């Protein structure tokens, strides 16, 4: 039985799902089972249509994890995939980022990965964006049903996490976008008693499911991250013992001293060469062995060894969660899976708890209605007086400007004239005010309306 031709795909071909294309996946989707959710699982055509025709998924990162994730999603039946990556392909990526070939070196990862997947898996549309996640606004993120991250940066993760938490609008269920976060850079939260041997990061990884505002978010676990290796600056300056000390000396101390305002560009081979030459000279002086060009490159770019199979395990786990969430065919991960491959194979799944004082998803939020004539001073009085808030010495700001700070003295003086102003001159109707005070665990946000 041939099915009707589908819509034209981005690479210009009409396709048809051939018979039994998804035979194996359909075993899971054609009938309910003991683990399917009776309220949301719609066996047969409904769930298959959603997965293959409606579900729009965003993949952030097209590197080690991203390549695996894109391939897995395409092969499990997701057909509308978007991918963002700000990097271009480096020759050192080719050992594990299997969507790339030597001829692609220098090209954007997102674009090449998208082309490869579309060529290899007919009927799948992959829309690439070569740039930063910060370039895109809320409307862009709003179009997706699901987001999967395969990132190597804490900063980018914090940004997308905060963006998706902020997107949640209680009037609109569609605004809640599950975030699946994979990581293999060995920076996952480690239990205090788990001793991490050096240079074993490549065997560790984690996958987690974040349901913004419902489960713990990325920021909730931020202070449990493993620290990157940092050497004391006096050791670097005076008593180097490791090749890394020499490289840090060259990049942290010598570069700014010699080059002044010129920033060290870790993507510029000439810059790396300069650091390497300087580090090597210092290593010879202190009779330290092991300074190589590739170690220099690794240390200044903070590259952590990546192992293809660890990426494969983590990416597979992320994609299984995406499939389960999109289809309701089984319960999804609740909510943190960690893989520790350093001592044989160990994994542990647990529920990471939401933090009440999380700066992104925690904290109190209040809607308050005040007379339009109220001054900032009057608002502060009310905050101090109200029994249910009970804060001392609140400092106020909006997302774009500072309203009143209790300290430091210079800022207090500069902002004092605001006390006399009407709140309505500084904050629009429905606008937000962020309140911090030593008596609050983190902050309180107010949504102001006027009477």
């Amino acid at each position, binding site marked *: 039985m041939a099915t009707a031709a589908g819509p034209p795909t981005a690479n210009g071909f009409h396709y048809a799902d051939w018979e039994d294309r998804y035979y194996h996946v359909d075993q899971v989707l054609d009938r309910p089972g003991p683990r399917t959710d009776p309220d949301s699982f719609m066996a047969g055509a409904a769930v298959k249509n959603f997965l293959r025709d409606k579900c729009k998924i965003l993949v952030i990162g097209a590197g080690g994890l991203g390549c695996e994730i894109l391939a897995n999603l395409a092969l499990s039946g997701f057909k509308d995939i978007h991918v963002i990556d700000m990097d271009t392909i480096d020759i050192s990526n080719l050992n594990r980022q299997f969507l790339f070939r030597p001829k692609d070196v220098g090209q954007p990862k997102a674009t090449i990965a998208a082309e490869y997947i579309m060529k290899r898996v007919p009927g799948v549309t992959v829309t690439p964006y070569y740039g930063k996640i910060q370039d895109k606004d809320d409307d862009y993120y709003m179009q997706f049903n699901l987001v999967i991250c395969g990132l190597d940066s804490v900063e980018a993760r914090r940004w997308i996490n905060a963006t998706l938490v902020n997107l949640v609008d209680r009037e609109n269920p569609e605004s*809640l976008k599950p975030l699946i976060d994979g990581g293999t850079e060995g920076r996952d939260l480690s239990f205090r008693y788990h001793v991490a041997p050096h240079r074993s990061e490549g065997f560790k990884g984690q996958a987690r499911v974040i349901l913004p505002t419902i489960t713990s978010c990325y920021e909730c676990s931020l202070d449990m991250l493993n620290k990157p290796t940092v050497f004391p600056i006096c050791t670097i300056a005076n008593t180097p013992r490791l090749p890394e000390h020499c490289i840090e000396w060259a990049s942290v101390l010598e570069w700014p001293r010699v080059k002044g305002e010129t920033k060290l560009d870790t993507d510029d081979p000439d810059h790396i060469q300069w650091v390497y030459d300087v580090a090597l000279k210092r290593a010879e002086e202190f009779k330290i062995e092991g300074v190589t060009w590739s170690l220099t490159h690794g240390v200044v770019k903070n590259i952590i060894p990546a192992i293809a199979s660890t990426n494969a395990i983590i990416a597979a786990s992320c994609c299984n969660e995406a499939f389960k969430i999109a289809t309701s065919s089984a319960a999804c991960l609740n909510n943190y899976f960690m893989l520790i491959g350093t001592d044989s194979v160990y994994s542990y799944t647990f529920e990471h708890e939401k933090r009440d004082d999380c700066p992104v998803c925690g904290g109190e939020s209040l809607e308050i209605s005040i007379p339009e004539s109220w001054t900032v001073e009057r608002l502060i009085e009310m905050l101090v007086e109200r029994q249910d808030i009970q804060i001392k010495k609140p400092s106020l700001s909006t997302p774009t400007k500072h309203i009143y*700070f209790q300290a*430091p003295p210079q800022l207090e003086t500069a902002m004092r004239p605001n006390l006399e102003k009407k709140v309505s001159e500084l904050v629009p109707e429905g606008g937000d005010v962020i309140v911090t005070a030593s008596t609050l665990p983190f902050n309180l946000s107010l949504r102001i309306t006027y009477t």
Partner: protein
Amino acid sequence: MIKIWSMKKNEEAAAKKKPKTSAAQIRVQKDLTELDLPSTMVTHFPDPADLLNFTLTITPDEGMYKGGAFIFSFVINMNYPHEPPKVKCTQTIYHPNVDLEGNVCLNILREDWKPVLNLNSVMVGLQYLFLEPNADDPLNKDAAEELRRNREQFMYNVKHSMRGGYVKGVQYANVLA
């Protein structure tokens, strides 16, 4: 698609739509407005609207650096408090834990930084360096050597350097307040 909305335990949780201020910004606001500095430390914001770039002036009222005004620049990035603030001394000063480029050897600025620390801890740590210069973590090796070998001579060098004098062929900045 799973029905996440029904997982909402109550409407209360859904009301927590937060304003679009980054966690780093809120944290800096919290740190700055709760600073509890002695009269020996003053912050200065060249642009009061920019909380991420400012200076701290330390004027020790005791110890061998008494009488000087030492100015440090603070640069905070959007990954704060995951990353520590970048702190440098803006003057060339004679101090065992500060090099001629203004780099500071203070453990909590690098290897011992934790997100639970705050700007207050960093500032108090910096002031401590002027009360108790530490010869064991040298960045200015000559100064550290002098402190260890001959404390009297070191104290003389400090006084001399603070007036803008030369010590071992290096001219230091006049930092007298």
